């Protein structure tokens, strides 16, 4: 089974769970007075779940095989021939950034993200990437926090 059918199957599962919630469990707590309404919070989701399930089934059954992707596109069948290690490392780095942003502060976390990101992609001259990261993190923090007034904690939690 090709990837697009697997994904259609996954979406079908999602629609079924979504539909189950909409059709059976959601309206249990609906107040009396709202039950007299012609439209309930679950009305639109009910319709969507049915349409989504039909559409996913259609793809699952009738979808023609995909064309081979162009030279420029990423072909999932040859996934391992690409730089998937770098891609995974960057995804991990993004998750790490999300976790560290609050405790480390904006400037520290951002500098770390940019330096390690550049290192993953092959920049080995850390002094240059550190300089670039410091300028970028500092100026963006200044723009967002001081000029625009959106609060971003710049320093680690134990300093500020």
């Amino acid at each position, binding site marked *: 089974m090709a*990837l*697009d059918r697997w*994904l259609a199957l996954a*979406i079908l599962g*999602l629609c079924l769970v*979504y539909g189950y*919630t909409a059709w059976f469990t*959601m309206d249990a707590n609906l107040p009396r007075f*709202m039950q007299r*309404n*012609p*439209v*309930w*919070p679950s*009305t*639109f*989701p009910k319709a*969507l*779940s049915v*349409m*989504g399930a039909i*559409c996913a089934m259609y*793809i699952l059954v009738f*979808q023609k095989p*995909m*064309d081979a*992707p162009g*030279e*420029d*596109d*990423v072909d*999932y069948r040859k*996934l391992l021939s690409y*730089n*998937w290690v*770098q*891609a995974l490392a*960057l*995804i991990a780095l*993004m*998750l790490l*950034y*999300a*976790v560290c*942003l*609050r405790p480390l502060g904006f400037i520290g976390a*951002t500098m770390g*993200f940019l330096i390690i*990101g*550049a*290192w993953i*992609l*092959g*920049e080995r001259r850390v002094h240059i*990437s550190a300089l670039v990261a410091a300028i*970028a993190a500092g100026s*963006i923090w200044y723009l*967002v926090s001081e000029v*625009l007034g*959106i609060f971003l904690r710049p320093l680690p939690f134990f300093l500020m």
Partner: protein
Amino acid sequence: MLDGILLGLTTALSIQNLFLVTMGCIIGTLIGMLPGLGPMSIIAIMIPIAIGIGDPSGAMILLAGVYYGAIFGGSTSSILINAPGVASTVATSFDGYPMARRGQAGKALTIAAISSFIGGSVGAILLMIFAPALSSVALLFHSAEYFALMVLGLAAIAAFAGQGNVAKAVLMTILGLIMATVGEGALFNAARFTMGFPSLQSGFGFITLAMAMFALPEAMFLVMHPARSGKGGKAGEIGKLRITRQDARDMAPVVGRQSIQGFFIGVLPGAGATIASFLGYAVERNLASPKEREQFGKGSVKGLAAPEAANNAACSGSFVPLLTLGIPGSGTTAILLGALISLNVTPGPRLMTDSPEIFWAVIISMYIGNVVLLILNLPLIPYIAKLLAVPRPYLIPFILFFTLMGSYIGQNNPTELLILVLLGLGATALRMANYPLAPLLIGFILGRMMEDNFSRAMQLYRGPSFIWERPMTAALLVLAAILLVLPSWRARRERKRSLDSSMGD
């Protein structure tokens, strides 16, 4: 009307107001380039400054400049790094980004600047002529028609984004609509489908979803497949800025049509620039010859010019209900309404008679704003486009960082970043399997408005009878169905024809 124009000119051409419109355009462009800060948030940020000016005309002129600048800045990031920060520039990235990847970033930005200029200027002229008359047309549209209009818009998008694979596009649209139902709706104050996560209480963030659908998969693809970023480092080149005579000839009818169509869509409250840009793209794709249609999505001049002209014209259009009825048609104009009220000006039918200088100054300053934007941006384009010449080990972490920032600034919540990465992984898989992602995002954007209008119509008619009782609604829905069926019917007819001709030989 001539009196009004002269009055507007004298107000708008004062040194102070010229300065304000120029500043507004510069600030708007610079901040609009950061994905995540759309015109709405920039205008909200600028309000205290605008109110500080004290003079309502000056304040409106500043804010209108910011508005235009932000929209142009938004197209820049869509074209260069495929990260549309604003819903109305999503369609710009369809053709703008492939063009930039082919090494024609400069040309793409020039086309965008010129189309926006013409779209905005035509919009301002139409606003002058039609503002009073159009306010009554906008009132004719009820929730039922809005619902139908949105169904039509989604169908048009699914039909064009599918490219022979309408089922996948429809499935993505439905998935987007499903995602839009997560969180609290406007009509029912109960959280739905949050699966117990408090961060989903207010639903998925638009920026988060936009970044996850476009920028993240693109960055991942660039990492995995470096050859993709252009052969021989072509993507680093800015290319010529000049557009050829042929390009200009291709653009002219598209820009003309879309400026007018975009304006009229912008007039409808709630429709706004987003729908205008998508419908503009879809319409132009259908009008193009089969050979040109192939180019759409791969860097077509027409495909880039259409949404740009349409969204700027629609921005002018969205001022019609604001200035004539006092009804804001979009989030941005709602913020402008708030600014006006705090300046002690009440927009509405009496604005034109009570304080004509404000009404006309705003219209004239829109025109001036467009000129300023063009003069400012054309010389800046080579520098803006240099962004692409940044070496890979720096460019990609920066794109990822701006994606993360964009969704963080809006919500100030690190959980949003985790959602972003997870959605981005899903989007990467969907993209590998040839699922078009634009319909998902558009479904998500329109989903909430669509449900609200649907529910309102249901309540007014106490059931779904509005579908057949209101002729305009029925007509729009039928049109939507035709749009969905048309591509497969056309494909079948072509297959049959090629079969026939081969039999005839």
